[in-house]
């Protein structure tokens, strides 16, 4: 098992958002978590990545045989957990290349490897750039600063390609994308899909799943997974809306 | 010359030994004696020279002339929409209680001469708050006002009173036979859950010179709301130093708006002391300067507690040989985490003989803050001018149109509609005059 979430409860500012989540993800699997706004989807991503505003009050998370909740934010990342941000953060004056290089070398240091020299890094970068059709000029700009919505999301997937995570959590990576950008981003994700890597897609809409076929679909509502199924569940949601599940649950 | 010796005579003459506020005035006079009048050598007075004004002889009169003014005289000073409102009058710097027009019961609004209030049930409030601004305004002029405090006014809003009608405070200087020096003083206290809209105006009657050295202290308790408008539209013979210090003791809301159109040398000190968590303050200012006027806006926002918000927007236009000054200071104390404090000063120069001086300052001692200031000095947008003229609008009109546009976002903040209209009319006339 790559990731095993057992009965996770989490609060922010004293308010309980996650109310007992259970989820197991194996290598090679793609899971989609869907749910209406405010159901706790992004909270789950934040808790897994270790955002400090969230307090885990109950439950355990095991990631590659380690207690994930004991790890610092950066150690989770170095161990192979990657979060593609819903709102990627701007850091003025820090070029995208330098930022990614720092991240890649931190990971290599963690793995006991030598840092990549400029040339080797550039070579790898060139390869991965093609994946998300990202332009060299974008990479010399300050990270995320003045990027369009699509550029920001492509840059997230580009970083995923560079960092080669074991588990990628993609938080609303489809939001704010037009159809072309969505196709490019989804294409990139599909190419990064392999049997050693697990992907957790967090999305509000079914449309991303037209491009990326999930193995499992879960519906998150009011801090709990209320329904799990196959791709068909997503289609059903698309057709009937969330109401059919939320009403069922509220009863 | 109106010098220290002159004030010494006046002080000894006036001070009554049994006055309840005698101690305050004595200390203040000693301070004045020590500091003298501020000179431009002091950093805070770098851009405004006030000392030369005292080369003249002023009459610091004991009379408040209140019987000289007929109801129709007073009515002439009314602003649009004022008929129903409450109105108080200061004549030559002395509160003229006999002229007050208050359309409320004493349960809703208390207005008393300061001396009287200092003896009665408000003794404690006065002891606590009167003179508290001297901690921030450490200059001779401020001390001088405090030394002659006895004819001031005390305004009090009891707990829970939302004063529906605005309160007007008219300052009248009678300068028909001699130069007048006036020193109005007021203490305004807003208890919990109160609401006050306060408007101050200044009028010099007669052709002699007037110099008004005013101090107002305002205290707000929890959940009090204050909208404070100051309209400075006096003659070129009227100089003025006007200091207002607002203490937001409880979580409260303040909006101030200062409009300077005409006058001689004007210096406004506006201090906001944010002593409670979650205070909100908006400061607006507009100077439309022509002729030889000199208007200096000094603001201070002292953030002492966390989670306060303040925003300042001051706009200035200087034509002819006028000088506009803006000096804004934001202090964020160590405890005032999560402060958001913003300040913007925008200025337009219309003449080569006009001057704009600006000094926006940030002094920040807490780290989790968002603070910014911006300052611009420039001209009317040439493109816009060209556009208007290409549509057949004459130069002068186009200029007036753009200047009104420039002023609009300040005027939009005037929530009293008749007052806004009144000021818009004044500005229109002001821009049309040469």
């Amino acid at each position, binding site marked *: 098992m790559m990731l095993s979430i057992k009965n996770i409860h989490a609060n922010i500012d004293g308010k309980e958002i996650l109310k007992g989540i259970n989820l197991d993800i194996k290598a090679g699997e793609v899971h989609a978590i869907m749910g209406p706004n405010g159901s706790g989807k992004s909270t789950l991503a934040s808790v897994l990545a270790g955002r*400090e505003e969230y307090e885990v009050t109950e439950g355990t998370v095991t990631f590659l045989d380690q207690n994930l909740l004991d790890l610092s934010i950066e150690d989770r990342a170095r161990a192979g957990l990657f*979060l593609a941000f819903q709102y990627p953060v701007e850091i003025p004056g820090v070029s995208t290349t330098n930022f990614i290089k720092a991240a890649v070398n931190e990971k290599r240091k963690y793995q006991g490897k030598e840092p990549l020299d400029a040339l080797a890094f550039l070579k790898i970068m060139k390869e991965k750039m093609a994946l998300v059709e990202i332009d060299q000029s974008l990479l010399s700009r300050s990270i995320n600063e003045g990027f369009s919505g699509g550029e920001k999301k492509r840059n997230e997937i580009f970083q995923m390609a560079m960092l080669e995570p074991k588990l990628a959590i993609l938080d609303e990576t489809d939001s704010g994308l037009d159809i072309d950008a969505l196709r490019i981003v989804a294409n990139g994700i599909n190419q990064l899909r392999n049997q050693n890597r697990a992907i957790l897609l967090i999305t509000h809409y079914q449309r991303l799943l037209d491009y990326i076929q999930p193995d499992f679909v879960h519906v998150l509502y009011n801090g709990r997974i209320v329904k799990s199924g196959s791709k068909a569940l997503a289609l059903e949601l698309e057709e009937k809306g969330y109401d059919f599940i939320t009403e069922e649950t509220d009863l | 010359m109106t010098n220290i010796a002159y004030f010494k005579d006046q002080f000894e003459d006036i001070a009554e030994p049994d006055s309840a506020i005698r101690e305050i005035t004595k200390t203040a006079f000693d301070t004045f004696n020590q500091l003298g009048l501020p000179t431009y050598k002091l950093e805070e007075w770098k851009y405004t020279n006030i000392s030369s004004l005292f080369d003249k002889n002023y009459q610091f009169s004991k009379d408040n002339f209140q019987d000289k003014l007929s109801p129709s005289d007073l009515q002439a000073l009314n602003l649009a929409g004022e008929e129903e409102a409450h109105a108080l009058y200061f004549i030559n710097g002395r509160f003229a209680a006999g002229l007050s027009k208050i359309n409320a019961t004493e349960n809703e609004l208390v207005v008393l001469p300061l001396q009287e209030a200092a003896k009665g049930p408000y003794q404690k409030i006065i002891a606590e708050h009167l003179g508290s601004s001297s901690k921030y305004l450490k200059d001779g002029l401020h001390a001088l006002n405090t030394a002659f405090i006895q004819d001031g006014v005390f305004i009090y809003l009891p707990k829970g009173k939302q004063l529906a009608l605005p309160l007007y405070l008219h300052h009248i200087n009678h300068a028909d036979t001699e130069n007048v020096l006036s020193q109005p003083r007021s203490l305004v206290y807003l208890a919990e859950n109160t609401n006050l809209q306060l408007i101050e105006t200044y009028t010099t009657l007669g052709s002699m010179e007037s110099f008004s050295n005013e101090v107002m202290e305002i205290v707000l308790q929890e959940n009090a709301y204050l909208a404070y408008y100051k309209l400075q539209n006096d003659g070129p013979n009227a100089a003025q130093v006007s200091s207002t210090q607002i203490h937001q003791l409880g979580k409260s809301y303040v909006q101030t708006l200062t409009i300077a159109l005409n006058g001689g040398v004007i210096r406004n000190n506006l201090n906001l002391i944010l002593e409670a968590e979650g205070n909100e303050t908006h400061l607006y200012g507009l100077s439309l300067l022509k002729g030889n006027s000199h208007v200096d806006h000094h603001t201070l926002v002292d953030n002492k507690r966390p989670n306060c918000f303040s925003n300042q927007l001051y706009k200035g236009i200087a034509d002819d040989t006028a000088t506009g000054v803006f000096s804004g200071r934001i202090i964020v104390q160590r405890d005032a985490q999560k402060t958001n404090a913003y300040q913007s000063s925008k200025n337009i120069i219309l003449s080569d003989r006009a001057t704009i001086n600006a000094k926006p300052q940030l002094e920040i001692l807490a780290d989790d803050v968002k603070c910014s200031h911006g*300052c611009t000095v420039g001209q009317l947008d040439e493109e816009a001018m060209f556009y208007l003229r290409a549509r057949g609008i004459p130069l002068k009109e186009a200029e007036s149109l753009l200047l009104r546009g420039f002023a609009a976002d300040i005027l939009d903040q005037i929530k009293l509609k008749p007052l806004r209209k009144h000021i818009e009319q004044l500005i229109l006339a002001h821009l049309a005059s040469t």
Partner: protein
Amino acid sequence: MNEDLDMLEQSALNDYKYGFVTNIDTDTIPKGLNEGVIELISKKKNEPEWMLAWRLKAYAYWLKLVEPTWANIKHPPINYQDIIYYAAPKQKEQLNSLEEVDPELLRTFEKLGISLNEQKRLTGVAVDVVMDSVSIATSFKEQLSEIGVIFCSISEAIQKHPELVKKYLGSVVPMTDNYFAALNSAVFTDGSFCYIPKGVRCPMELSTYFRINAENSGQFERTLIIAEEESYVSYLEGCTAPMRDENQLHAAVVELVAMKKAEIKYSTVQNWYPGDKEGNGGIYNFVTKRGICLEDYAKISWTQVETGSAITWKYPSVILKGDHTIGEFYSVAFTNHHQQADTGTKMIHLGKNTRSRIVSKGISAGQSQNSYRGLVRAAKGAINARNYSQCDSLLLGDKCGAHTFPYIEVKNKTAIVEHEATTSKIGEDQLFYCRQRGIDAEAAVALIVNGFAKEVMNQLPMEFAIEAQKLLAISMEGSVG
């Protein structure tokens, strides 16, 4: 954030790398300041009569002044009688070549990363090194003189080019300018002199490295750069001092003169000893730097990276006298522990169509106080003057302060002056983003701070930029907040 706060509390064991003392015989004069001392300095430097007269005049003026108190800094009173005004490493009277420099001194500068050996140096940088009160050596002098560039110590210039020194010394910063300028004019000992003749683009960077070594001494640097018509020069200065518990005074005056279409680019990486974590010791860096764009189309650009000194008091300024002239000021000031910096610039627009640009980035950590103070003045005749100023402050930790005191004075209707300033701390979301990518908090802060300062760093010549970036990283160690 508790974890980060702990890291802040641990705050910096960063050793100042340049804090060693060179053991070398030093020729020092007794402590104290009087006319006799000034005569002695002048005599030691074998100065002509006019120079001594100039110094004495400055001294007489200085005696009438009181130390200024307007800056946002605090320090115990300086006892000007308790300072040694002249200290020079003992070596042969007249050096004929670099080979004759005392090996101990050569080693000192090697250790500081400054090689005086021309073969070993990167071509493209000529260096003058000043230790305490004297210039030790100047490299590439001959190559430069072939194209007419004079690059030597100011002492040498007084001897060899008196007409130039007489003409320009004190022409930009008069001896009466301020307290420290008057003091410097009376007792200055050494510094650099650069003269770029008409039409010459100086082919290499000129640089001066200032080192304080002797105990109880003050350093009074005087630098003068003259760029004739259509010439260009890029000048760099660096500085370090040993770690000592006492405060030492460095009171410099730098004057730049740019003629028609000339350009002077002046870069400083200031790394004087900042004092220890408790605020003991460190250099008082009280400096007057000013350039004048004397003729049309001249350009002067100041870039400074200030990480050192216990106290910095410095406002590199430009007087835009000629029409179409340009002044620039790019500054990064980093303060940590108990350091205090009050720095900024003055842009005085006098000519028509003059332009100036100010970019100031202040970073405060520990219990330090960091102030930007600047003046932009558009005089009546400065038709179409333009200024844009951007002053940003970053606070690392809740015990430091960041202050901004700009003065804007506009006296004509065609000038446009814009000033913007912001103060904030590093965003939690920025830190989280970096850490999610595997970059630890400390490295993330360094990354973000470097990004914050980048616009200024970009102005430095390449080798210097890398040095400056490293310096910033070292100064910042342990200041994560």
